[in-house]
């Protein structure tokens, strides 16, 4: 025999002694489907749906057409690395200390340091990086290199289009990292 409580109809929490009224959540049910009322409601909902889609049509597309248009990145976006020079003297900031290579969890940075010759200085410090390579096919873009660097010589840029058909092309040398990126990545403006 099924009681009303078991059917879920006219459920009275007081009838079930072990349930306190706080445990009972009242459920709001929609109207029963079918019948004239159901058809009327379905018609109304259909009109509401038509209104919704028409509003989307009027708003216009939100697509960013990627190869032509790029998604703007945030200022702290970690993209391709950049090596920096002093703007006034033109000397490289990197002194070849290899702290970035030590910090790198993916072990993708290779630095070979060399002594500066007094007449032909490359960097501002005693030594400079004769070889500075980042293997971007291994880099995980964590940004630890930029945190480890004591001279802000390496920072993460905003470029993210680095795909290539050949892995050897993804080992970026010092010259490539010092050069300005060919295409600028747009930055998100304030509050965007």
């Amino acid at each position, binding site marked *: 025999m099924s009681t009303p409580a078991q059917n879920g109809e006219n459920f009275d929490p007081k009838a079930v002694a072990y349930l306190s009224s706080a445990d009972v959540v009242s459920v709001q049910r929609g109207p029963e489907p079918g019948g004239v009322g159901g058809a009327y409601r379905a018609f109304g909902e259909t009109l509401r749906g038509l209104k919704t889609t028409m509003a989307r049509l009027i708003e216009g*597309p939100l697509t960013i057409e990627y190869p032509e248009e790029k998604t703007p990145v945030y200022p702290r976006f970690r993209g391709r690395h950049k090596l920096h020079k002093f703007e006034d003297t033109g000397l490289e900031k990197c002194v070849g200390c290899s702290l970035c290579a030590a910090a790198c969890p993916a072990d993708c940075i290779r630095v070979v340091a060399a002594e500066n010759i007094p007449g032909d200085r490359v960097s501002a410090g005693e030594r400079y990086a004769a070889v500075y390579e980042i293997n971007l096919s291994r880099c995980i873009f964590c940004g630890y290199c930029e945190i480890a660097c004591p001279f802000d010589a390496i920072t993460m840029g905003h470029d993210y289009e680095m795909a290539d058909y050949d892995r050897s092309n993804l080992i970026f040398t010092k010259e490539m990292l010092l050069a300005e990126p060919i295409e600028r990545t747009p930055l998100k403006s304030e509050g965007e």
Partner: protein
Amino acid sequence: MLALPLADVNFVEATWIMVLKSVIIFAVIFGILPVLTVVERKLIGRFQHRYGPNRVGPFGILQPLADVGKLISKESFRPANAVSTLFILGPLLPVISGVLALAIIPWGDVQDGVGLYGIDVPIGILYFFAVGSIAFYGLVLGGWASGSKYSLLGAMRSAAQLISYEVAMGLALLGVVMMSGSLSLVDAVHAQGEVWFIVPQFVGFLIFMLAGFAETNRTPFDMPEADAELVQGFMTEYGGMRFGSFLLVEYMEILVVSGIAAAMFLGGWMGPGPSFLDPIWMLVKMLGLVFAFIWVRATLPRLRYDQLMSLGWKVLLPLATLNILVTAILVVVT
């Protein structure tokens, strides 16, 4: 001239004019069809905050050329256990029915001794129902002859769909027929000189459009195709241009249903301006209704098969009957 006693027509003209008219109607309609495919895809995109196809040609207008080129270059294969003649007949019947139905769409009145319509048959609407139903033979035969369970299910569904909306569709147009006093579409347009029939026959218009969605196998009544659960239903085993002709027919049927609805409810070619604008007005009204088709497709999900049947038999049919009853009383009283 050899007079064939096949059928009465309300307006007779020379044979070469008839041929010329058919060529022009063909050229216009088959010019619109590819544009319609790309317009639909672009509009659906806009309804979903997208652009739609815009890679082939400026704004993607050459997309239909690319599509047709792809379809033509594909192999017209046939499954091993398909019934060959019926399999080939499948896509042909809907094309024939769609082209036949185009003949009665009125593009304008008789101007300079030429009626701007394919033919004005006095049985007008009955002709539309007669040839419109032939299309479903194509669907059912094609689906059945494919020898595939998905195709068979799609074919069964299209048969079930046909019987659930066709009655309501006919009854919806009966109100207009009673008000205009003629089955001919040209007479129906003439009867709308004062007020378009969409005003007194609004219920009939809604029922006709709902049934029209089912007639053209469009969302929300595209159960025979149902790409999600039946992998295109009756079209599953078709490829190449045979598949293409099924698609073509879908758009042609949309144009036909829009044309019938525009002539019966929206005043046909009536519009401001000189009389040579009449076909343009008709086309504008048709394209407006085509937009409604696309709008509904962008909005509504597919109904379940039993839901369409209960809608057709329990809602549309009584509503259409009531509509006829009220119309009949009003026509007799006034």
